[in-house]
C-alpha cells in the first residue's frame, strides 16, 4: 500500500454508471408498476455509491458525502412507502398493475 487505495475511484464510478443504466432500462421497459419502482431503487443506489466514493476519494476530511447518502436513503424509504400505497390504490381501481394499460388520460 504505497500512499493510496489499491483501487482507483473510476472503478466505483464504472460500477455506479452500469447500475444506473440498468435501473434506467428497468424503468423504461418494465410493464409492472412495482418493477418500475425497483428500477428507481437501483438508480438511487447508483447515486449513493457515487456519493460515498467521492466522500472517500475527494472528501478531504469533510462528511458531506455520507450525510447526502443517509438523507437519500431516508427519502428513498419515504418514496417507496408512498409509491406502494399509490400502486395499491391504482390496482384497486383499474384491476391491473401494468402502467401501459393505465391510460385514462390518454387523448
Amino acid at each position, binding site marked *: 500500500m504505497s500512499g493510496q487505495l489499491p483501487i482507483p475511484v473510476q472503478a466505483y464510478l464504472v460500477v455506479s*454508471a452500469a447500475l444506473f443504466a440498468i435501473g434506467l432500462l428497468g424503468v423504461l*421497459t418494465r410493464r*409492472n408498476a*412495482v*418493477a418500475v419502482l425497483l428500477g428507481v*431503487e437501483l438508480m438511487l443506489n447508483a447515486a449513493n455509491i457515487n456519493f460515498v466514493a467521492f466522500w472517500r476519494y475527494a472528501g478531504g476530511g*469533510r462528511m458531506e458525502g455520507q*450525510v447526502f447518502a443517509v438523507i437519500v436513503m431516508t427519502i428513498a424509504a419515504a418514496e417507496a412507502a408512498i409509491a406502494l400505497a399509490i400502486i395499491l390504490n391504482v390496482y384497486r381501481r383499474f384491476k391491473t398493475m401494468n402502467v401501459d394499460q393505465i391510460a385514462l388520460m390518454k387523448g
Partner: protein
Amino acid sequence: MAALWQSIWQAVWQAFLSGSFWYPLAFFLFAAGVLIPALLVVFSKNIVHSALWLLPCLASVAGLFLLLGAELVAAIQILIYCGGIVVLILFAIMLTHGVGDPDVRVHNQQLWWALLPAAGLGFVILYLLHSESWPVAPPAISADVTARLADALLTSYVLAFEVASVILLVAMIGAIVIARGEPKQ
C-alpha cells in the same frame, strides 16, 4: 534463478498479506454481486423473483460502502433497504398481483428503444471517466468516521436532518391514508 523465484514469491506473499490483494478481489466480488443481480431484477419474468434479486444487489452495495470505509452507511443500507424496502415491496406484490403468471409479458414494446438512452448514458459516463483525471484516496482515514458523521448531521446539517424526519412522518401518514382507500358509506 532460485533467488529470482524467491523474490517473486516474496512479492506475491507481501501483496497477499497487504490490502493490495484482498481489496481488489473483494471489490470485484461485490461489483459482480451488484451488477448480475441488478440485471436479473430488470429481466426476470416473475415479479417476486425480481424483488428477491434486489436483496443480494443491495447487500453488495453495502459491501462497497464497507470497502470505502463508510460503516454506518453500510449498516443503514442493510437495515433500510434489505430489511425495510424489499419487505414492503414484497407485501405490495402479494397484495396486488396474481403472482408469477408466466404468460404475461413483463416488458413493454419499447425494449430496444429503451436500450438506446440507457446504453448511451452509460457510454457518455464511461467517456467522461476516461477523459478526466481523478483524485486518489489516502490509504487510511481516521477511525472516528461515525462520530464525525453524527457531528455533521446534528450541527451543520441539522436542518436537513429535521426536515427528513418531518418528511418521514408525512410519508407515513400519507401512505396510511392513501392505501386505506375510500371509506365505505
